[in-house]
């Protein structure tokens, strides 16, 4: 992860607090971009932003499209946490999208990785109970170190996990 990526989430927050106009624009995008879709669990909601199209397409090709939706993996299970994360991501995605100021390809942030890991474990507790986890040695093995493509299918056989557009003729 590039240094400073995590802090990117905070800087705009401060900035936003100071510039109501910008907040207004963000909220406009949130509304016009059907931000309410964010509040639903329907994966199609995420594709309101074309930028979420590739993750969506690759999710359709993943082993989990029948088992888990975006929110099952990307939002915390706890009620409060869920809405907090929705506000956080919802707002910043709108912000980033409006001002087109984000790294492409999109890279998940550390705090969101922690949410992900917790969700994997929540569903797969039984399977991973013997894997020493936090508390034993203080750190967990990241599930994505090995299971990179569970949520987002590989592009063609052998391709790493990311979400490039799938060129016609190269489909698996």
């Amino acid at each position, binding site marked *: 992860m590039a240094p400073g990526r995590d802090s990117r989430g905070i800087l705009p927050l401060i900035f936003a607090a100071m510039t109501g106009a910008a907040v207004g624009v963000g909220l406009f995008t949130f509304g016009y971009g059907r931000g309410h879709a964010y509040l639903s669990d329907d994966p199609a909601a995420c594709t309101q932003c074309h930028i979420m199209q590739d993750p969506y397409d690759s999710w359709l090709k993943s082993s989990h499209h029948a088992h888990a939706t975006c929110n099952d993996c990307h939002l915390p299970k706890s009620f409060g946490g869920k809405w907090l994360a929705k506000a956080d991501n919802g707002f910043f995605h709108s912000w980033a999208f*409006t001002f087109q100021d984000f790294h492409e390809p999109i890279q998940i942030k550390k705090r969101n990785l922690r949410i992900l890991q917790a969700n994997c474990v929540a569903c797969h507790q039984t399977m991973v109970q013997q894997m020493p986890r936090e508390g034993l040695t203080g750190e967990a093995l990241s599930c994505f170190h090995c299971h990179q493509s569970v949520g987002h299918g590989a592009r063609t056989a052998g391709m790493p996990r990311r979400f490039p557009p799938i060129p016609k003729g*190269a489909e698996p």
Partner: protein
Amino acid sequence: NITERRWEARHPFVRLAEVDERTIDPAVWGRNWPHQYDSYLRTVDYERTRYGGSDAVPKQKLDADPWLRLMWAGFAFSLDYREARGHAYMLADQDHTERVLQRPQPGACLHCHSSILPAYRHAGDGDVMAGFRLVNQMTWNEARQMTDDQGEPLVTHPIACVDCHDPQTMSLRVTRPGFIVGIRALAESDEPLPHLPSVERWRRGDRREPYDANRDASRHEMRSMACAQCHVEYYFTPEGDPRGRNQLVFPWHHGLKAESQEAYYDEIGFSDWKHAITGAGVIKVQHPEFEMWSQGIHARAGVSCADCHMPYERIGAMKVSSHHVRSPLLNAAQACQVCHNVPEAELLARAHTIQDRTRDLAERAAAALVDMLSAVKTAQDAGVDAAALAAPLQLQRRAQWRLDWVYSENSHGFHAAQESARLLGEAIDYARRGEALARQALAPGQPPRRLEPPPMPSATPDAKAPPGPSAARD
């Protein structure tokens, strides 16, 4: 902003201008596909990487690596050999190279340096393949100055849209006779080609029709084959060849590997020239990017040239292939991070590790080659019997072939890291074996006299280096 994006997503392009086979000028195509045209124009830009990229005044490699003048002694490449740069310059750079200015070159060169199809069609009266054979045999100047019946010049542009795209469907295609004939021969060889599934499929078929990339290859394979029209090793047939003289041939009859190509040249007894120092019959390797890529893990994993050199870039809601073909290391976010989820600095470090190792071993191989040439020359000067030196000359051919294969391949080992190192290891072996034999032919205690690279009086000084095409942006 968001409104505009939604609109773009629904309307990818409008045909404002009609384009057909005769539309060479990319500006006309650019009216329909302005984004691709914009990035196509950016191939005039320059920016260096550790080993690649490009400069405004392309670096003279003969000065950076003076041993090249010994390896290529007596051949045109020892006059002028520079870093490649963007596609926009391909025709201009050929106009200016001392290799063309000082040595006679055939029309065959233009196959890969211009949007040449109108010239082929004109010379062949509509038959591209016949025209290709005729243009190959012309002198370079004749070919470069060809005009149509109205006296309009026929060789006008560097590579253009029509060379890679079908003007009706915009799908990728190959147009170059050298490739069309070459890939047929390759398909008929028996080297395994797991990275070209359509060839493997054709081989299992009835083989009544020869392999035809435009019919058989998948779109994904075309994303590499489009480049394999030019980024490949080639040779010109010598006087007396049944196919005629100066015909451009890709030596793929036994396969793409360095050893397979060498076997072909050995079989037909071909040498590009007699080495000016030793007299050995040697071969020049030119840019075997497609062949080297074929030996690497990326090809094996289905990663094409366009994936790295023409990555998608987002323009609003659309994704377009960047037609600013260049070093992917200038652009690792789009070129690599779509697949490798690691920071850009880490990706560069990985690529540089591979390139540094290649560079290191290539220098070792170069030292071995120079030592060998020195020993052979000293022995020849001392009057050692030619028969005693026949073996070293044969070893020189083997050594140069391998070192040149890696050196003239433009990725500095990246396209196939282990294969590059393997070939350099072999180059070292052959060169040092030649040296050992030549040294033994010398009297004990008479060390070989070290050859020094000759000066380069005739080469273009940097200040006069090939300028950019003045009209590139009009």
